[in-house]
């Protein structure tokens, strides 16, 4: 079934620490997994994405890992900054016209 589970619901980390967010899914047809970052009052913006043929993608301080066998993915933010405080959504797509979103993780980075 088309469902994406995201955890934790909220998270507080100290500046400089590492943030880890996770998602899991059931539908084997999902092959594209974007992570979106959303600040209050704004729409979600693409942060990083990964295809199911890869197991890791890195972009600066942000890395996403994908485990096809376990149907899990994660987002790691190293050297977390107060400016990273936002809500993060994972999503999944079978490569067609729509995304299935997780419920989001509200991240707060404390200086």
């Amino acid at each position: 079934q088309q469902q994406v589970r995201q955890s934790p619901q909220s998270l507080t980390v100290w500046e400089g620490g590492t943030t880890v967010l996770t998602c899991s899914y059931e539908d084997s047809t999902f092959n594209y997994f974007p992570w979106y970052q959303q600040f209050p009052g704004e729409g979600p913006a693409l942060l990083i994405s990964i295809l199911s043929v890869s197991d890791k993608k890195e972009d600066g301080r942000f890395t996403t890992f994908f485990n096809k066998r376990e149907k899990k993915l994660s987002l790691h933010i190293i050297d977390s900054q107060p400016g990273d405080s936002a809500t993060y959504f994972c999503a999944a797509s079978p490569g067609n016209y729509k995304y299935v979103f997780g419920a989001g993780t509200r991240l707060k980075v404390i200086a």
Partner: protein
Amino acid sequence: GPKVLQIPSHQIIDMGQMVTLNCDPVSNHLYFYWYKQILGQQMEFLVNFYNGKVMEKSKLFKDQFSVERPDGSYFTLKIQPTALEDSAVYFCASSLAPGGVSYEQYFGPGTRLTVL
């Protein structure tokens, strides 16, 4: 980067009235989407639209919902009549090609709809 605009940011209406949510997508994009987010829950796909036609819709896209983009103007979501359960934030998105493997969906800031 490319921006998707949504008008209005907040709309309050009485149950049974009609409401139109407006979306100004990225100028050269061809695919358009609406998502619905009830407070505290995940964003859920409603519908996508291409070349004047609905490509796919979810079970949340009730008969009271309709979408159109007349002559390249706003991409609109119309709800007629509205129901209490329609209260949510509605996000519009657009993409150059089918959102998925290669083409990012760009999202607007959302319209918060409150049905009284």
